[in-house]
């Protein structure tokens, strides 16, 4: 099993990159959800124009 360290490091690096990118996407998704919630809140708080309910 000579040089086994290199192959395990190679797989660890690739999986770290893949999972790192997936977590980055999850972070972006959470950020978008927060922005949407904030927009929705802004719309609800906005006073309705006169004559309208």
């Amino acid at each position, binding site marked *: 099993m000579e040089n*086994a360290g290199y*192959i395990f490091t190679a797989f660890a690096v690739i999986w770290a990159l893949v999972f790192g990118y997936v977590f980055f*996407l999850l972070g972006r998704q959470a950020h978008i959800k927060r922005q*949407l919630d904030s927009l929705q809140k802004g719309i609800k708080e906005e006073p309705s124009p006169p004559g309208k309910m």
Partner: protein
Amino acid sequence: MDPMRRYILSGLSLVLMLLALYLIFVYVPTEKEMGIVQRIFYLMVPMGWLALLSFIVVFIASIVFLAKKQSGWDALAYSSAEIGLVATTGALVVGSLWARPIWGVWWTWEPRLTATLVLWFIYVAYFMVRSFAGEESRGARFAAVIGIVGFVDLPIVVLATTLWRGMHPGGVIFSGGLAPSMLLTLLVSLAAFTVLYVVLLMTRCSLRNAETTIKQIKVNT
């Protein structure tokens, strides 16, 4: 992409990944000269393939974006460039881990390695231009130009081993130099990473479109 299709593709990617791992660590025989470290090949080639595939998508999406000025094409190019940068980073790091025991060095200015490093810098420039352009639409246009001009490096990466005969082993896949079990393992690994690319690209693209829409809503209100 609807969620059901994305779940199916994610599941397919997971199954193919597990199958590829089984083939790489259990099924495929150890190569005589290089030993166990040759198995890095089944990661290095898919990473290189994804780097190329990503840039082909960036190239096409950039041309269509400049022609039609539709933000969806820019989102596609941006998303593909992001995945391409990750894949190129993976190819360079894994290639270095392969080179150390085989060539005795972590890095050498060999034609294909150098062309791949240039590709990495092009991807980095693609994002730097967007950051420094100030206005979003101007950044998108500048990045699209880099996505088109940078495509010139792709044939250089692919043909580097044929044109300059460096240390990098070239043509082993298409010249029939691989044993059937090795070819099968490589093809499954390529398929696994290609499906993963599609899933990540579609996910990133829909997030990018959502980000753009929110920005437009904020500007208009």
